[in-house]
């Protein structure tokens, strides 16, 4: 069905694999469109509760396909950036946890995509760079928003201005990734995390993701309002009622 990606779902976990391994999964217009499409499909599919994004071959994603740049016509540039933004928004606004499973390079918009995800689990050979400046571009796909929030403003600017290459251990230190494991354990580690998340209330996960993503922008009173409505919704959810009943039944035995 897709040319540049594959999608499989099992046990509540949807796995999106970037599938252009001979070009290190470089992102072209087709891949961006297909990713937008699969995210739209996943958003409506109740059977998918957690998403994993990975890259086939030795890389996660080496960024935008340079063979599609250098001669970008003005009208196309506007459309291209719109697509790029829609991809970032698709991941951020998807009310389900998204895990980036990273081996090898995650550079350029590959890094942007990883930063848009809720979790980043890396193999020990992973490496990260905001390589945009090397081709005279600003960092895109929302990464100027996401990266400072993950690693702080100063380190983000260093990565942006110098395209600094960060290896896995340093990425872990900086908080850019949540965990680093030997490459042979990567898939299993990610699946353990994914399965753990499939056990949680999907409505609560979706609501908390939406609100937490805004936490740095909202004032406390505004956030409290969101929190209050969100909690009211959760109080009326089956997941909450069942969990409380289970707890009280166990305690009362």
């Amino acid at each position, binding site marked *: 069905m897709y040319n540049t990606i594959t999608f499989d779902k099992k046990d509540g976990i949807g796995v999106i694999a970037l599938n252009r391994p001979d070009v290190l999964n470089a992102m072209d217009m087709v891949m961006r469109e297909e990713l937008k499409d699969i995210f739209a499909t996943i958003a*409506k599919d109740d059977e998918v509760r957690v998403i994993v994004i990975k890259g086939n071959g030795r890389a996660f994603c080496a960024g935008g396909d340079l063979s599609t740049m250098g001669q970008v016509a003005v009208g196309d540039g506007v459309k291209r950036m719109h697509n790029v933004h829609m991809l970032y928004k698709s991941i951020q606004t998807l*009310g389900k946890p998204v895990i980036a499973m990273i081996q090898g390079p995650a550079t350029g918009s590959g890094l942007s995509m990883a930063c848009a995800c809720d979790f980043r689990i890396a193999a020990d050979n992973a490496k990260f760079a905001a390589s945009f400046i090397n081709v005279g571009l600003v960092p895109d796909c929302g990464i100027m928003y996401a990266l400072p929030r993950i690693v702080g403003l100063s380190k983000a600017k260093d990565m942006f201005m110098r395209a600094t290459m960060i290896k896995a251990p340093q990425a872990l230190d900086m908080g850019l990734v949540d965990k680093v494991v030997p490459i042979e354990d990567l898939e299993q580690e990610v699946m353990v995390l994914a399965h753990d998340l499939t056990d949680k209330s999907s*409505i609560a996960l979706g609501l908390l993701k939406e609100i937490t993503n805004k936490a740095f922008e909202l004032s406390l009173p505004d956030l409290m309002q969101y929190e209050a409505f969100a909690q009211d919704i959760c109080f009326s959810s089956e997941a909450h009622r069942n969990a409380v009943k289970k707890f009280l039944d166990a305690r009362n035995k």
Partner: protein
Amino acid sequence: MEQAILTSKQGKVGLITINRPEVRNALDLKTWELLLIAFNELDNDNSVSVIVVTGAGDKAFVAGADLNTLKARNSVATFYGEIPSIVAKIEKIKKPTIAAINGFALGGGLELAMACDIRIAADSAKLGQTESNVGILPGAGGTQRLSRLVGIGKAKELIYTGDIITAQEALSIGLVNRVVPSADLMKETMITASKIAKKSPIVLQVAKRVVSSGADTDLASALTLELLAQSFVFSTNDHMEGICSFLEKREPEFKGD
């Protein structure tokens, strides 16, 4: 079977007609989805510069939602409901959009009209944010877009009372841009749409984004956005064509590049 959403083109203007006059063009989820598809198709059609949406018949633009489906809906389903995001996507259509309000625009119908850039109303049209009459909120942007158009005081009054107002009152509070005789609605709308369609498509789309985004942010950030947008526009061929044609006293031929 007649289609619920009809699409046609007149020159560079794309026209969407909501075609369920037997239910006063009420929108259910399926019709909203078809409506969004129609908007997207015209938005992606390079021969179209401006999109107009109107209702079939002379009684209603869109007279509300399908109440039976609302009855069946619960809290979680409402949170995951798609209509608010469809309306938000309509608001984010890249090309200029005009709602030609031919009759009743109530509830979701008013929300649809407010998601468009410009509202032109027939003098017989009536408008209202009527959800409080059925015990719910305006849930497709009405609580926000109404106050941004007519001010908080008038918005609260309309939302609390669920009142239906005339086109003339809507004009006086800024809810619609213009009121025209009913018989002339489509003619007048097309005149405005065609005028807009003569401009550079890039400028139209950039102006839409800058005005919309800037309205939600502080002045300094919005002015930065304007500056970036203008700098971008000066990299286009259209800006050259625009300035040269004016100096040469001839009609511009904008190509959208």
